[in-house]
């Protein structure tokens, strides 16, 4: 099968925030227009959008048509992809296959999420639906409590402390403080985390990504056409998705995100790269434990060692790999169905030298890792600066 090479031609982001005045369609419209207006492509053939909670929180389905209409893209083909918090990464994968296959040339993708449209406990409940509704959610589990069980197990097996995890949140906030799109752009200390309210032991408030709204848009096209429309584009050199059991208790090893291991392996092979080749990575740190498992399962450090590598500066610019210069989910924010699209767009910005104060110097190759559920799905995208 001959597949075309695919480029990310342009990107657009909104700041992640509590956007009380903006609706679902306005948010994506803002990001999409920013991406579209950077280039003059002849037409937009399709829109593939990631979103998780609109049907629960905004009473809206049929997001593809809604956004195609708002952006004046009708009658182009459009649909929404839902893979819980992995929706954004899944949408990018869908758009990639649409272009690579030759079926469409210019495809808008990305993600949008309006979490603040939820009232009372609806937002937490909606997010919890990423888990197994009949055998996890039924018992009063939330997304936090399932990850808390994983974190407690990690601390027990690897003899680590809450402080070790807190330091990951501190690094995220240090990075995010430089990112104008971040929801929580301020530095914190280890004490901020340790003294924050306990949500589900051992996860406290500052181990968690915040609730926010946001949209990220990407315009994809065949690589060979990209130079006609932009001087700054990147190539998608590796992309893959993988799954694991939806119920965390069915996993052989609770401390390995097997979907991440498998998706990363496939994406590295497709790109003919190894973890050592990655200069910058946006990883899925919904909770500090998720960030820890992610850096390990992406091959950036051994199992059980994330805290030692973190203390050595391995995850900062100039270390082994710059992790989450955006601030990650913890500080940039986590508009769930848009998060994976933010990550890919942020890596594209890094490789095009467009990240301003949060730029990682000389980044050539970057990776985005987007998880759905507590590791039940992962989408990996590897980008390289176009040469």
């Amino acid at each position: 099968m001959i597949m075309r090479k695919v480029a990310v031609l342009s990107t657009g982001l909104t700041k992640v925030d509590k956007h009380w005045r903006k609706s679902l369609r306005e948010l994506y419209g803002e990001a999409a227009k920013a991406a579209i207006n950077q280039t003059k492509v002849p037409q937009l053939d399709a829109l593939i959008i990631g979103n998780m909670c609109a049907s629960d929180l905004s009473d809206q389905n049929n997001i593809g048509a809604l956004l195609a209409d708002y952006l004046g893209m009708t009658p182009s083909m459009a649909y929404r992809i839902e893979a819980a918090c992995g929706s954004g990464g899944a949408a990018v994968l869908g758009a990639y296959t649409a272009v690579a296959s030759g079926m469409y040339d210019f495809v808008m993708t990305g993600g949008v999420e309006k979490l603040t449209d939820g009232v009372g406990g609806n937002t937490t409940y909606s997010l919890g639906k990423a888990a197994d509704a009949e055998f996890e959610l039924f018992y009063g589990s939330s997304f936090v409590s399932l990850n808390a069980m994983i974190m407690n197990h990690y601390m027990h097996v690897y003899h680590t402390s809450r402080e070790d995890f807190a330091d990951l949140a501190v690094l995220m906030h240090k990075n995010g403080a430089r990112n104008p799109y971040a929801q929580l752009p301020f530095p914190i200390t280890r004490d901020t985390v340790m003294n924050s309210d306990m949500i589900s032991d051992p996860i406290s408030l500052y181990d968690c990504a915040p609730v926010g709204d946001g949209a990220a848009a990407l315009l994809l096209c065949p690589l060979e056409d990209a130079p006609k429309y932009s001087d700054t584009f990147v190539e998608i050199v590796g992309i893959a998705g993988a799954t694991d059991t939806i119920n965390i208790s069915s996993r052989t090893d609770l401390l390995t995100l097997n979907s991440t291991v498998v998706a990363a392996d496939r994406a590295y092979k497709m790109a003919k790269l190894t973890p050592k080749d990655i200069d910058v990575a946006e990883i899925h740190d919904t909770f500090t434990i998720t960030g820890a498992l992610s850096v390990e399962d992406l091959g950036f450090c051994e199992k059980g060692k994330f805290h030692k590598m973190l203390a050595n500066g391995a995850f900062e610019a100039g270390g082994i790999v710059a992790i989450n210069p955006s601030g990650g989910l913890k500080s940039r924010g986590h508009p769930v169905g848009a998060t994976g699209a933010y990550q890919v767009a942020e890596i594209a910005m890094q490789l095009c030298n467009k990240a301003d104060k949060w730029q990682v110097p000389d980044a050539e190759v970057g990776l985005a890792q987007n998880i759905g559920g507590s590791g039940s799905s992962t989408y990996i995208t590897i980008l390289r600066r176009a040469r």
Partner: protein
Amino acid sequence: MSVPRYWREMPERTRLEAAKCNRCGIILFPPRGKCMNCGSESFVQYALPRRGKLITFTIVRSPTKGFEKQVPYVLGMVELEDGTKITVPLTDVFPEDVSIGMNVEAVFRKVFEDGESGIIEYAIKFRPTL
């Protein structure tokens, strides 16, 4: 929760019924359409053991909808005597007395009430072994 939806999962949630693969013998809980180990579609009904050890747990202080009155409550993952792992609530114990490795056993309990006009949901929870 609709009555049919509650009713159809009763074998698993109230009797701990799992599926045992007729070809490779692996235990699946909850049951699947195909064996994740060997791909077989042939299963026999299998009752999980009612005792096990707590592998990990959390004390929930920020509840999900419908569980507000139960805070703080404990959720745990139990490895049963045959090695099967399940996610279950713990009961009949103070949160501060829960520890990893403790022996636990199955007991029938109320899980939550579905508002003023809904049904009352029951299921198996686990308590420290008496």
